């Protein structure tokens, strides 16, 4: 019983670590390109001004990747701490 408690606690700590890292990535992708858009726009990316590209497409792709990584990583964490559903 105490073993499962310990595993649960460790699992939650790992979840929190992962969540904070990904939230940081989310905040960076959401707000930095918007804040520095004028400077970024001086660069060109396949025709797009970079600032415009980031807000219209780049950030969206990063969001998809974040959610995908979260799903993958959490499934791994469940396995590692033996908390996954066996059926």
């Amino acid at each position: 019983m105490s073993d499962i408690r310990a595993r649960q606690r460790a699992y939650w700590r790992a979840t929190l670590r992962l969540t904070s890292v990904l939230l940081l990535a989310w905040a960076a992708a959401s707000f930095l390109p918007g804040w520095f858009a004028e400077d970024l726009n001086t660069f060109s990316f396949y025709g797009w001004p970079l600032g415009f590209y980031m807000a219209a497409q780049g950030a969206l792709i990063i969001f998809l990747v974040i959610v995908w990584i979260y799903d993958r990583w959490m499934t791994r964490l469940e396995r590692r701490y033996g908390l996954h559903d066996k059926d």
Partner: protein
Amino acid sequence: MTTTPALFRRLGRYYAVYAVGFVCLVIFLAVAEQLGLSPRWIGQIFLFSTIAIYAAIGVMSRTSDVSEYYVAGRRVPALFNGMATAADWMSAASFIGLAGTLYYTGFVGLAFVTGWTGGYVLVALLLAPFLRKFGQFTIPDFLGARYEGHFARVVGVFAGVLASFVYVVAQIYGVGLITSRFIGIEFEIGVFVGLAGILVCSFLGGMRAVTWTQVAQYLILIIAYLVPVAILSYKVTGVPVPQAVYGEVLRDLGVKELELFSEPRENEVRLQYRYRAEEYARKIADLPESLAAERTGQVERVTELRTQGAAAREIAAAERTLRDLPRTPDDARIKWERARQDSLARSVHPPPHAEAHPGADQAAKDSARNNFIALTFVLMVGTAALPHILMRYYTTPSVREARRSVFWSLFFIFLLYVTAPAYAVFAKWEVYSNLIGTDIGSLPGWVASWGKGGLVKIEDINGDGILQLAELTINSDAILLIIPEIAGLPYVVSGLVAAGGLAAALSTADGLLLTISHALSHDLYYKMVNPQASTQRRLVITKSQLLVVAVVAAWVASLRPDSILFMVGLAFSIAASAFFPALVLGIFWKRANKWGAVAGMLAGLGITLYYIVRTHPFFGGSMGDAWFDINPISCGVFGVPVGFIVIAVVSLLTPPPPLEVQALVDFVRMPDQGRNAFEAENRL
């Protein structure tokens, strides 16, 4: 209760057949159009056949089982829940309005694109898996259990119903707009036709029917969104993947814009608009004499025309102008001020499409930047707090499927949002390069047909017979519907776009109506008024609430409230400031207690509403009172942090929550691990 691969395969087969069938219908109608089928018929076939499909799915999925009715039996596979959430999420505003907004605002409008997608990261990381683990029926359910008691639940019901109702009115309004335009019926009747379309899905089968209809609606709306812009992209660049190639077009558009903005005739038109604005300013200053002078002038003109024996049409026009004159000086002040603002806006060139944070000076640029960031933030947090979206994650079979289903939701939403900026750029390119500078006498047919409804306006203010950019107005909501005609595509494409817009509005309205009726019947009636109610009685109550709410919403929509977009923005700020802090802290901070949550929700909501009233002209406020120049649409940017701080402070000042609640928090944090005591106790 688990998803069997067999169910998944069967669903996949059904929807594949359905999608192919829909594409065949489109091809059939395209051929029929070439053979002479009239546009009116095409529009009607599109709208009625799609509504018939939704109705058929609704009737087939009818149910009288509570779990089926509220959460679709909790066996919707991740992929399909993703599609349903995407349809639930993408409303008439996204489908119809976004491309138009981006057309006019360029970079500034991208806050909507980033904001409405980035919110799903918050849903995935902070809410969806935990709410699914909690596994009841509504969002107030979670608030009620986590913050012990009815107080938090009632605040949740109130904020949820407020946000959802405002939102649903906008959807029904959109349905009325589309049906009245494409099948030529009265707007008010269109609203009630749309209402029938919504009710056939949700009334009989609740969440189960709505889920399967939403998947069908998603397929139609995404096909309808991608096809026209792909054709347009092929026409302009030779590559039918607009998302990948519009960068080049954007660059060319930048060159074109500079050309247009330095053209002498364009500048002359801008100058004339400035004179007109000054004229209005003078008239406003001279009220009430100026109004009286205006009226006598117009009366004289009518009599003069009559005595001269002018054409009847000319006299009628003069009489109409006289009738439309403001009645009182106060009316005149409002009307002329609006006209002055409009002329003033036309007297300057629009900012270049790609320019970030446009502004005349550094202060204006900084304010634009702050507002861009604030709007992005509010839309993200609002997304992660709208009850009709969060509720969808109760329908998956497991926590893992809920997590995966957020990924699919974001993916399916991504397809539309990544295309919207391309839509705007291609539309602008078509207008700037093929329409501006042509002879006003020989404009294409769509200008006249959309002009009748007032959605396209042309005014040759300098009288040179040539269309200048400043002389053309296209209603921002009409841009998407007009694009196929601007590009000279066959009418069947316009019909397809209308069917897509209808699907977007209906699917969102369905989800919202369910949220409202569940909140009223489940949270208010069953949980608080009559916990002994039988299953049957609960469903009867839910269904009758649904009916009442739907009819009231349709009635409000038929009054055509003109501040609908503002109200949708308000819904986001309300949801963000009322729910987000309480939900997130409820999961991630055990120490948060009921006093903190209730105080935080009320404080967040209060600040948000206070800021709106203080700054929005609709409530008599003014931007002069704004904090940091933040526009009222982003008011949640103050409400959310206040909510977090108040919850934290009040919770720390009051006793910690009891052990059962802390056990509940531990429970929702863990992944699927079979059934346990909490679930058994709650008969789930």
